[in-house]
C-alpha cells in the first residue's frame, strides 16, 4: 500500500502498521428515547410543557405567544419587531436595567425573538434559578410598561438593523423569493421598509401586544435541571392571573408556483446569490417526511447530490444548501447558494439537472439508507439539547401535529423506499414550475439567465 500524495511517498516506512482497507462496520444504532415531558394547562388557557433534561445545571424557559409578523397589516411590516424591543424596556415594577440585573443574577438575560408565526420570550438560566426565571419572564410578558421615552431610540435601532440587512445579498434574495412565492401575503414581506418603520407609534405596538398576547395564546416550555414542584408552583402563581387575548384573523397564504426568473441588480457583485424553489406541502401532509428525506438527499446535507456537484465537483460555491421552509398550511422547497458570478447560469443548470435526475431515476437502496441514517442521526441530535428539545416541541405544537408525531418520526423515516423518493420528487419538485431569484451583477449575468425564462428585474423595496 502506498502512502502517496501526488506520487511522493509521505510516510514510506510505516506501511506495515496499515489500517484495514474498509472502515469498521458500526454495531446496531443505540435505542433513542425522547425525554419524558409533562404537559398541563392552566385554567386561563396557558399551555405548559416541562421536560427535566440533561446533566449541566441549567434550564431554558421559553414563553411562546401566537403573534408574529404574519399578523402585521400591509404598511406595518416590522411592527412586531419594534414591539419585541419595547417589551424589554421595563415592567410595572421594574425599569429595563432592573429587569436586566435580575436576569443576570439568575445566570442569563431575557430575549425576545419575533418570527413570522410566533414571538417568544426566552431565558437561559442556572438550574437552581428556574422558578425565578419563570416569574421574570411572566412579569415581562404580562406587564410591559411601554415607555414613550424609548420609542425613538428603538425605532432607530430597527432602522439600522434593516439598513444593514438590506445591504447584504442574502436578505435581498430572501425578500425577492418570498415576494415571488407569497405575493402580497405577509409571508411575502420579509424585511421591514424604512418609510413604514418611521410611522410606527407607541400605541400601535402596545395594542398589538395587549390585544393578541394572552393566556390562551401562550405556551410555556421549561427544559433542563430544575425542581418540578417549585417550577410548577411558580408557573401557577405567575401566569394564573393572566387574561385571555383575541385571535388575529390570519390571511390564508396562496403560494404561487411557476417558472419565473427574477434578477435583483447588485452592480459589481463578485458572486450571485441564488434561490431556486417552489411551494410543496406543510408538515401536516403525509408527504412531508418523505420530502424531508428527499431534500436531504438532494441538497440538504454536506454529502448531498447538489452539494457534491456544484461545490465538490465544480467549485462554484462554498455553502450551498436546500431546505424546506414551512408555515402553517404551506411549505416551500428551496435551494440556495452564493456562486461565482461567471458561473451563475452553469450552477443553476446543474441544480436543475440534479432535480431532473432524481425524477428520472430512483436512488439506490444504499444511498437512501445512508440518507435515512443521517436524517435519523440529526433527529437524535436535535432532541439532545435543551434549545433543540424546545424547538421540536414548538414545531409539533405550531403545526398541530399528532401527539405521537416525534415518537413515530424515526420509524416513518426508516420505512421509506427508493420508489417513495422518486414519487415525491416527481409529484412536488417539478423544475418547470420553479421560481429563480438571482441577486447579482446584472451586466454580467442577465443574458445568461434568459435560457431559464424571461428575466424580470426586481427593485428591492
Amino acid at each position: 500500500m502506498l502512502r502517496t500524495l501526488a506520487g511522493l511517498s509521505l510516510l514510506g516506512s510505516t506501511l506495515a502498521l496499515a489500517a484495514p482497507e474498509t472502515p469498521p462496520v458500526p454495531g446496531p444504532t443505540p435505542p433513542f428515547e425522547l425525554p419524558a415531558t409533562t404537559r398541563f394547562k392552566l385554567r386561563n388557557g396557558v399551555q405548559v410543557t416541562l421536560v427535566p433534561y440533561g446533566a449541566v445545571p441549567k434550564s431554558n424557559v421559553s414563553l411562546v405567544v401566537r403573534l408574529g409578523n404574519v399578523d402585521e397589516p400591509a404598511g406595518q411590516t416590522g411592527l412586531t419587531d419594534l414591539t419585541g424591543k419595547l417589551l424589554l424596556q421595563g415592567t410595572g415594577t421594574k425599569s429595563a436595567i432592573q429587569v436586566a440585573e435580575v436576569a443576570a443574577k439568575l445566570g442569563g438575560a431575557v430575549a425576545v425573538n419575533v418570527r413570522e408565526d410566533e414571538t417568544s420570550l426566552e431565558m437561559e438560566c442556572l438550574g437552581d434559578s428556574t422558578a425565578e426565571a419563570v416569574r421574570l419572564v411572566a412579569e415581562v410578558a404580562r406587564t410591559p410598561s411601554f415607555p414613550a421615552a424609548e420609542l425613538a431610540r428603538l425605532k432607530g435601532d430597527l432602522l439600522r438593523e434593516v439598513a444593514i440587512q438590506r445591504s447584504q445579498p442574502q436578505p435581498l434574495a430572501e425578500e425577492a423569493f418570498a415576494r415571488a412565492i407569497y405575493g402580497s401575503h405577509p409571508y411575502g414581506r420579509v424585511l421591514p421598509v424604512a418609510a413604514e418603520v418611521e410611522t410606527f407609534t407607541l400605541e400601535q405596538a402596545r395594542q398589538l401586544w395587549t390585544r393578541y398576547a394572552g393566556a390562551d395564546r401562550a405556551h410555556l416550555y421549561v427544559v433542563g435541571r430544575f425542581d418540578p414542584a417549585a417550577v410548577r408552583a411558580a408557573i401557577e402563581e405567575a401566569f394564573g392571573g393572566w387574561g385571555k387575548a383575541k385571535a388575529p384573523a390570519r390571511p390564508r397564504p396562496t403560494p404561487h408556483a411557476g417558472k419565473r426568473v427574477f434578477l435583483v441588480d447588485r452592480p459589481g457583485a463578485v458572486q450571485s446569490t441564488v434561490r431556486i424553489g417552489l411551494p410543496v406541502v406543510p408538515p401536516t401532509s403525509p408527504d412531508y417526511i418523505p420530502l424531508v428525506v428527499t431534500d436531504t438527499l438532494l441538497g440538504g446535507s454536506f454529502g448531498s447530490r447538489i452539494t457534491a456537484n456544484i461545490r465538490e465537483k465544480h467549485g462554484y460555491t462554498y455553502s450551498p444548501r436546500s431546505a424546506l421552509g414551512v408555515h402553517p398550511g404551506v411549505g416551500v422547497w428551496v435551494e440556495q447558494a452564493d456562486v461565482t458570478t461567471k458561473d451563475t447560469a452553469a450552477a443553476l443548470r446543474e441544480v436543475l439537472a440534479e432535480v431532473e435526475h432524481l425524477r428520472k431515476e430512483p436512488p439506490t437502496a444504499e444511498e437512501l439508507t445512508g440518507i435515512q441514517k443521517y436524517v435519523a442521526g440529526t433527529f437524535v441530535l436535535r432532541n439532545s439539547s435543551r434549545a433543540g428539545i424546545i424547538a421540536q416541541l414548538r414545531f409539533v405544537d405550531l403545526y398541530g401535529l399528532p401527539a405521537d408525531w416525534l415518537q413515530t418520526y424515526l420509524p416513518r423515516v426508516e420505512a421509506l423506499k427508493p420508489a417513495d423518493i422518486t414519487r415525491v420528487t416527481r409529484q412536488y419538485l417539478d423544475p418547470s414550475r420553479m421560481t429563480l431569484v438571482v441577486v447579482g451583477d446584472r451586466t454580467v449575468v442577465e443574458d445568461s439567465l434568459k435560457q431559464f425564462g424571461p428575466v424580470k428585474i426586481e427593485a428591492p423595496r
Partner: protein
Amino acid sequence: MRILFCLSLALALGCAHSPAAPAPAPAPAPAAPTPSPPPAADAAAARFVPPDARPAFEIPVEFYTLTNGLKVVLSRDTTAPIVTVGVYYHIGFRIEPRNRTGFAHLFEHMMFQGSENLGKLAFIQLVQRNGGILNGSTRFDFTNYFEVVPANVLETMLWAEADRMRGLKVTQDNLTNQQGVVKSEVRVNVLNRPYGGWPWLTVPQLANKNWYNAHNFYGDLGDLDAATLQDVQQFFTTYYAPNNAALVVSGNFDPGPVKAWVSKYFEGIPRADVPPVPDLTEPPQTEEQWKTVDDKLAQRPALAVAYHMPPRGSPEFWAMALLQQILVEGPDSRLYQELVQKRGLTGEVEGGANLLGNQYDYQGPMLWMASLFHDTGHSPKEIVAAIDTAIEPLRRAPVDQETLDRARVKARSAYYADLERLYGFGRADLLATHALFDGDPAAVNRIEPSLLAVTPELIQRTAQEWLRPTNRTVVALQPAGGK
C-alpha cells in the same frame, strides 16, 4: 424578522446543515501508554487556584499519551446516545508560511479530499451516512476535525481519523477544486458583503505588529491560487504528526473497548520532528492607535476597540473573563447600559477575547474586542468617549459586590454554555485545547473555580493595566454608501 445571515462559519470546512457526571470506569490498557507528562509550567489554569479546587459541575477526565506522542483525552457523558470525536493539530493560521496566506485553512479543506482508504467525499459520507455531523475549522493556534455521531459509530470514526493522520492521497484536481471552494468562502464571508471579516479578520491585522498575528488569515486570493501539491505535502509532513496532536473522545462511549481502539488505529502512526513555534510575541503597546477602514458595501458605520490581553493563565487573564461579563455580556453590562440604554448610540455591543472561539482555546497573544454598528450622526470620537465613560470607573475603584456577584453568576453560566455548544462539541474543544497547549485537560475543571476566585482588587488592577487607552486600537469602519 428572521435572522437571515450568520457569520459563525468563518474559516471552516462548511456550514452545518442541521441544526450528571459519571465516573469513568477503569479499562484494560492494551498497549502501554506512557504516563502523561506533568502539566507545563505555564498551564492555563494551574496557578490561579489550588490544583484540587473543585467546580460545581465537574467533568470526568482521563488523560494519557501514546508512545508516538499522541495525547488522548476520554470524558464520559451519558446524557444522550451520542459521542464526539475531535482531533486537534497544533498548527493554526498564525504560523502558516509567509507567502502562503490562508494556507492553513486551505489545507484543512484538503483533509477531506482523500486519504489512503477513503476517497474524495468518502469521509464526509462515512460520517453522515452513519447518522453524524462533522466539520473542521482553522483557528489561531490549532486546526480541528470533529464528528458528533451515534455512539455505535465511535470505532469507525477513530479508524477514519487515524486513516487521514497516516497520510493524504490527493490530486491536483482536488486541490484546484478546493482552491475554488475556499475562494468562494472568502467571497461569501468577506468580499461580497458589507462588514466582510468585521471585526474578527480586520482588527487583528490593524492592532497587531508581529506578522504572525497580523496577516490576512483567510488569505489573499493570489496566495491561495499559488498553492501547490508540494506545499500540501510539506505542510502535512511538517505538522500533521501524532506528537503534534490531541485526540478527544467525549460523550456516551463504552469505556471497555475505547482504549484498545485508540491504540489499534493510532499507535502505529510514526512521530515526526515538529519545528518549534516561532516567536509570536507582540511588542507592548504604549500609545493608542486609531485606524479607519473603508467599506464600499456598507450603509452604516461600525466601530471596534481592541485591547491586548494579559497572558493566558495569569491572574489578570481570569480577571478579564469577569470584565467581559461586567462590560459586554447581557443588557445589565456597563457598555450596553451606557451605549445602548442610556445614550442610544447603538442597539447592541458585542465583544470578548478570541472571537473565533472563546477565552480559553488559544495559545499566544490575543485581543479583547468590543464592536458595534452605529449611525452616521455620531462620530467615532463620541462613541469612544462613551466607551471610556463605562470603562474608566472600573480602572479607578474596585467593583461593588453586587456587580461582582452578577458577573460571577454570568461567567459560570457562560462557561456551561461553552461546554454545551454544538451537541457537546464545546466540551471536547476545551479538553482538546487544554491537552494540546498545557498537557493538562483536567485544567478545564479549574475554569469555574478560577472565575469565582477573581477579586474586586484584581479586577481593578487588571483594568488599570490592560484596559488602558494606550493598550488599545480603535478601528472605525466608514461606509461608502452612508457618507
